[in-house]
């Protein structure tokens, strides 16, 4: 029979309230966002903290589409985040495979250099990245939104970790079977990276779907905005329409939540195998 760890009564008495406190602390802002999204303008500007609205204003979920081109914003968000996630799924395993299974001069140096980019905060890279994007004439374009994020050091690292344990003999067997190097990658290596690919795709999509700074810097026209910067339309000179902003927040949350539900199994497996939990 498998060993099952049990906590003593004293441990239970203090562990559960502490855990409940931290859960509440993280969930509370989200619950307040739901409440805010259902409040009327009057409740919002009343100066009081309204937890449960007197009358649930579901009309906010309709008004938002009328006040701003939200369909376009959503489409932009999906297109940009989806394309970036797809590029990650293509490039990250490919580069991870090269680092895991191929030998070439400078491999170690290049890998360390790649990993070191993880240590540099994005804001440090923001200005040179902006200048480069501008020089390439990619400001206010989808390419400008997508290109700088087409692959990531984290994704490459995760893929390399997943590919390393694949036996070299498996690759040798495919080579003997007459497979070319691209064939070996697509036929033999890639199908074994399901959990890692799901994780990279999910994390990338969610991260890019929520990305705010880069679109804010690169995009100038309204029809190029994703939801995140689109929400700033409710930020007016003298007041902010928090209820509509909260509705936008819900629209940002839902796709990511659904995606997580679908890919959760792979995500957990991947986290366990890569030791990143």
């Amino acid at each position, binding site marked *: 029979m498998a060993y099952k760890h049990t906590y003593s009564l004293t441990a239970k008495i203090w562990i559960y309230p502490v855990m409940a406190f931290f859960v509440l602390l993280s969930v509370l802002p989200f619950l307040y966002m739901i409440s805010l999204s259902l409040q009327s303008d009057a409740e919002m500007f009343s100066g009081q903290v309204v937890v449960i609205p007197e009358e649930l204003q579901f009309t906010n979920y309709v008004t938002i589409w009328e006040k701003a081109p939200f369909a376009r914003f959503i489409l932009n968000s999906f297109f940009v985040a989806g394309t970036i996630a797809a590029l990650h799924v293509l490039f990250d395993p490919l580069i991870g495979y090269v680092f895991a299974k191929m030998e070439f001069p400078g491999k170690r140096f290049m890998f360390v250099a790649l990993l070191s980019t993880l240590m540099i905060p994005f804001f440090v890279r923001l200005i040179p990245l902006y200048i480069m994007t501008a020089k390439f004439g990619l400001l206010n374009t989808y390419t400008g939104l997508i290109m700088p994020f087409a692959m990531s050091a984290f994704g490459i690292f995760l893929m390399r970790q997943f590919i390393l344990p694949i*036996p070299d*003999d*498996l690759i*040798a*067997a*495919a*080579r*003997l*079977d*007459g*497979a070319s190097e691209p*064939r070996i990658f697509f*036929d*033999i290596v890639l*199908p*074994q990276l399901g959990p890692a690919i799901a994780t990279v795709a999910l994390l990338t999509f969610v991260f890019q779907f929520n990305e705010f700074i880069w679109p804010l810097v690169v995009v100038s026209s309204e029809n190029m905005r994703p939801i995140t910067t689109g929400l700033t339309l409710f930020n007016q000179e003298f007041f902010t329409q928090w209820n509509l902003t909260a509705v936008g927040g819900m629209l940002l949350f839902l796709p990511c939540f659904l995606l997580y539900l679908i890919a959760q199994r792979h995500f957990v497996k991947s986290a366990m195998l890569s030791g990143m939990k």
Partner: protein
Amino acid sequence: MAGVTLNAVRKDYGTFLAIPELDLEIEDGEFCVFVGPSGCGKSTLLRTIAGLEDLTDGQILIGDQDVSDRHPGERGVAMVFQNYALYPHMNVRQNMGYALRLAREPKSTISQKVERAADILGLRDHLDRKPAELSGGQRQRVAIGRAIVRNPKVFLFDEPLSNLDAELRTRMRLELSELHQTLSTTMIYVTHDQVEAMTLADKIVVLRAGRIEQVGSPLELYDNPVNKFVAGFLGSPSMNFLPATMTANGLQFADLDGACVDFGTEPTPGKVVMVGIRPEHLEISEDGAPLPLRSVEQLGGVTYGYAILQSGEEFCVDLKGRRDIRAGDTIRLLIPPSRALVFDADTELRIR
């Protein structure tokens, strides 16, 4: 089908010389076994023949074609790996048919060849299973099946049985032997297990540090090893070695109460030699030298007695069948001169 010729094959990894320079001829249809201790270069040599390692120098011929610079898939060889190397996401049918699919063979031909191989190996009922759903023995059969369907000129086996348990290993060994008789294709087999080498091979190549120590049939190597290394490597339990000094009357042992035996070798008085004798060739006789046994192994059909000699050498005796002998008992041994082999203590070469 084709033989394999290695001409001055050399392989190094930077400063490490894995195979200094090696020449070898493997006949068409022969079952050739590369045997040697870990790190002797046997797997490297096999992988070099397969094309998985680049040659540093030399030439590899399969049949009359120089394949030294050819891609592994174009050499006409198929390989069975120690860890099976089955594609885990493909079922047995797909695993076995992958090479044919890459060669763009028609689906019907692939199916026919896969099923034929499955019939030979008794895998017909497992064709739709994934490798994870198979036992170790079945996986190894699939790996062999994957090699068979390609109809290669040469089969290469890299310690294919070492991951199996003892019983299964014996069964698979027999199956491989039968497979060789059925297919009559050249097979090159790498192992560090001398029992596998002795039972499977038409020809054994004993390797040490990338060099060939001796090539020959199993019994040729067993009976006439050219040096102490080959003599000690083949045979289970392995050959006993006793230090002795040459005298005008024969060889005088440092152990066995200083017994002196005339082996008929040209005497060089004072020269120190090593006398090799296999456990099964020793004779128990009242006239023999006393040997106190340290431990006794009863294996049912055979009994082995072990002793440590004064010189520190471990000594094993086949006590011939069942014997009521226990650890601590002293037996009396004779070394039959016709069965003993004499080796130079310095060069380790056989003195005839």
